[in-house]
């Protein structure tokens, strides 16, 4: 077997230091993604640092009127939180659109942000994949790409980020709080958290090795109608072909982010100025740089139509 060592961290900083000491160490929280990847030998950690005991599982008011969500808050609990349901409905809806009840019971807030792509070529270790094995090539380009990115991709990788929750976090302007091995903390705006692939698709986030997410903070409630609409071939337990997270104010202004179309939750703030003009104008700006494949070109009209339905729903 592929032996690995395991420890329970005593504090967030200690956890960070334990991972930093070893380039092949990984944090483990819910394990819903990591354990699958280990079984497939896509992830091969030699040391696991279990952070589940770190008491990062509270949801508490933030000083500025927002909400601070501990890194270990389970998706099920977060979706059911009264304050989230009332003030950040888009987040609750996004969470409930994802995975299955069993997975949501285990999956954590931080882990959800760190999900790896569901590109089928990433999962097939007999195929080249720059994300899995840097420099080996991308089998998805020119291959089966129905689920894959239409924008933000590169010549090295056209994978999408699979999270629903992250799309809602993006539209809510969440902030990621981390601790580094030396105990220093920092905050990373969600907009800067996920990286585009460029020529280093294996680098997926702004986190340094060993840097541990401790919380995700939401700013004070944005109000408005908050909608998450996930489009998929089957009614449940499928990744989004396209998803739309939107906050729409009574005057028609608002914000929108997309899932299922890009290597990270896709938001273009300048496109939001077009919201009063309707979905077509917003989608055109959101996807102006899109380079779809033959298989996934349908995502462009699908975004526009889904956004149109969301804006109509917001209007009531």
């Amino acid at each position, binding site marked *: *077997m*592929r032996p690995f060592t395991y420890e329970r961290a005593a504090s967030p900083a200690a956890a960070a230091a334990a991972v930093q000491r070893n380039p092949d160490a990984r944090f483990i929280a819910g394990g819903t993604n990591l354990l699958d990847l280990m*079984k*497939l*030998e896509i992830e091969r950690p030699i040391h696991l640092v279990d952070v589940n005991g770190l008491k990062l599982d509270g949801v508490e008011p933030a000083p500025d009127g927002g909400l601070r969500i501990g890194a270990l808050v389970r998706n099920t609990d977060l979706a059911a939180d009264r304050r989230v349901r009332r003030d950040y409905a888009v987040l609750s809806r996004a969470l409930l659109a994802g995975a299955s009840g069993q997975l949501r019971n285990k999956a954590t807030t931080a882990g959800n942000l760190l999900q790896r792509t*569901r590109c*089928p*070529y990433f*999962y*097939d270790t*007999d*195929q080249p994949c720059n994300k899995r094995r840097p420099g080996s090539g991308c*089998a998805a380009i*020119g*291959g*089966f790409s*129905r689920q894959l990115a239409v924008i933000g991709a590169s010549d090295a990788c056209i994978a999408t980020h699979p999270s629903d929750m992250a799309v809602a976090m993006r539209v809510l302007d969440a902030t990621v709080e981390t601790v580094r091995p030396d105990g220093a903390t920092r905050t990373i705006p969600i907009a800067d958290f996920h990286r585009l692939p460029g020529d280093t698709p294996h680098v997926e986030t702004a986190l340094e090795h060993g840097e541990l997410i401790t919380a995700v903070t939401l700013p004070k409630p944005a109000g408005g109608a908050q909608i998450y*609409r996930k*489009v*998929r*071939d*089957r*009614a*449940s*337990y*499928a*990744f989004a*072909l396209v998803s739309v997270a939107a906050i729409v104010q009574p005057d028609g202004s608002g914000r929108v982010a997309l899932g299922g179309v890009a290597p990270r939750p896709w938001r273009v703030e300048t496109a939001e100025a077009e919201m009063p003009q*309707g*979905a077509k104008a917003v989608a055109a700006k959101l996807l102006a740089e899109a380079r779809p494949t033959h298989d996934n070109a*349908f995502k462009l*009209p*699908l975004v*526009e*139509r*889904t956004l*149109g*339905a969301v*804006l*109509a729903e917001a209007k009531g």
Partner: protein
Amino acid sequence: MKFDTPATTNPIDRLAVVGKPTPRIDGPLKTTGTAPYAYERHDAVPDAAYGYVVGSAIAKGRIVAMDIADAKAAPGVLAVVTADTAGKLGKGEKNTATLLGGPGIEHYHQAIALVVAESFEQARAAARLVRVTYDRADGAFDLAQARDGATKPEGGKSDSDVGDFAGAFAAAPVRLDATYTTPDQTHAMMEPHATVAAWDGDRLTVWLSNQMIAWTTGDLARTLDMPKEKVRLISPFVGGGFGGKLFLRADTVLAALGARAAGRPVKVALQRPLMMNNTTHRPATIQRIRIGAERDGTITAIAHESWSGNLPGGDPETAVDQTKLLYAGANRLTALRLARLDLPEGNAMRAPGEAPGLMALEIAMDEMAEKLGLDPVDFRILNDTQVDPAQPDRPFSQRQLVECLRRGADRFGWAKRVPTPGRSRDGRWLTGLGVAAAFRNNLLTKSAARVRLDKRGGVTVETDMTDIGTGSYTIIAQTAAEMMGVGLDRVTVRLGDSSFPASAGSGGQWGANNSTAGVYAACVKLREAVAGKLGFNSADAVFADGEVRAGNRSVPLAQAAGDDGLAAEDGIEYGDLDKRYQQSTFGAHFVEVGVDAATAEIRVRRMLAVCAAGRILNPLSARSQVIGAMTMGVGAALMEELAVDKRAGFFVNHDLAGYEVPVHADIPHQEVIFLDETDPISSPMKAKGVGELGLCGVGAAIANAVYNATGVRVRDYPVTLDKLLDRMPAVG
């Protein structure tokens, strides 16, 4: 027992046990997790080592070099089996590609090695250390491209030609000429192929998950070049098969070879990501259908041609067969063409032929009805036939398609359907209704059983029949209980063991009728033995309430059995009733869908199947078969597709995340109605099968409902939102 004249009244007709909605007798074992499946036979084989399969990383070519030194040296490794180390292997009659590849590679993920270790994790880690150098060859992976080079398949799958199709079609005032496609599909059963193999000297026992024990016993012996008598197969529980477990597969061969190499028992379960490319699948088809009719709707010409691909030596998908029989029409043509493809082996999946064939034909019928301005139910009824259209002196043994359609239309509220597409709306949903005929032939094949009566009056049935989740245990117990006049609680059924008499096995929806007919035959013989022993005239003897009675004498069965018990073995064999009569099962599927007006997401809202399939032996398990099949039809219609990478030649979405099958949220209210029917031509049971009928036509009924909802006719399955989007109404 030779069955060559239609059945008359027999003990089954009492219907004291048969025909009752009996819960599955193996249900408690399954719901308590105590039914022993192949990979879990720790009870029988406590010391099995673990095998992990290495699949080829190329679709076609050769292995130039294979370095197994590091794998063999890895911790816990007991043996590494490759084509080099395995010695000369034969090939099963039912296999197209070899089950252990190398040096030649015939398809992606063809097994090329088995690593055997003390633990599963050790075997998996060591498998990664097997280093293979390939010489990749070009292959044909695209059916559409290979279509022009397709040829007439060899043996048995000939074209049919009745009257003058070309002339009649040209002369027909209303014509349809359309092409449909169905994708490659995978069985995606819950339990993977799994085997535990143990050698005792030169004798081999395998515990496996398999639908056809006799076929597979023979093919395992053939592959290992050993006498069949020295091979024993045990497969009492099967966690789903759908045709994927009809044959000997790599798990069994490799477990046997691994056990020989390691000198101890070995267990192998095919890893899920390997299953889609390593095993068989339902091949994709391209189907051209032409129908010509008079203006009144009478079909005068009907043609169905289908193209599919396979590895050399493989068979075509017989997608045109139902078109020979389903509708009337004097001028007819069918043709199958087979292209050579280097994708994994195509083979049977639930309702092979009819499932994809009806997906096309029953859209064509919907299109034709619209051209004619006829209701699709009426159009089908108008073109019903009670005889084989190619041989009018050959009637159907039973055919209640019209009744299925009428009863279903009435029950479903078909009259409320808005014939003009795109005119029915419920909030954000465009709604539509669709109908399709269901058709699947009833196949007769011999089946044997052994029945014992013990001194306590208990009855034990042994046959190598399998229960793949279908209810075989229960209907066999019902049959034996009825025949011997005992309660179900007095009957023990033992299945899936090659040391038992050979049965029909589970395939082609022939299992229920044939296997119970075999048990019937054995019970008739046992009744004769009982009567003979008691000096009764066996024709007069009545078996009921645990007794046998004749005249004014009655003797408890326990007493009749005596201390040594009584046993009988017999089977059913068939004469030419299936030549003199066409035996088929029929049904009608009705479906309501909603299509999201903005996103074109399709969700099924209601489903109804009305089936006419002979005597229903157990309405509960039969209903389960039909609703399961309807669910599979939702998958086929709306989401299931093995995506082909046409460059590298493999199915890309080879796991259950990428290959979507319906989840609970996709399946709405389902209703099943069985018409009251017995078919004395089919067997002494007067039964047929429903396990595949339930799938036949569902896909087209859904596609037709989508058309009714949206006005968009999709002829390429699966019907996904991207194929509708550009013709959906404006949003907002």
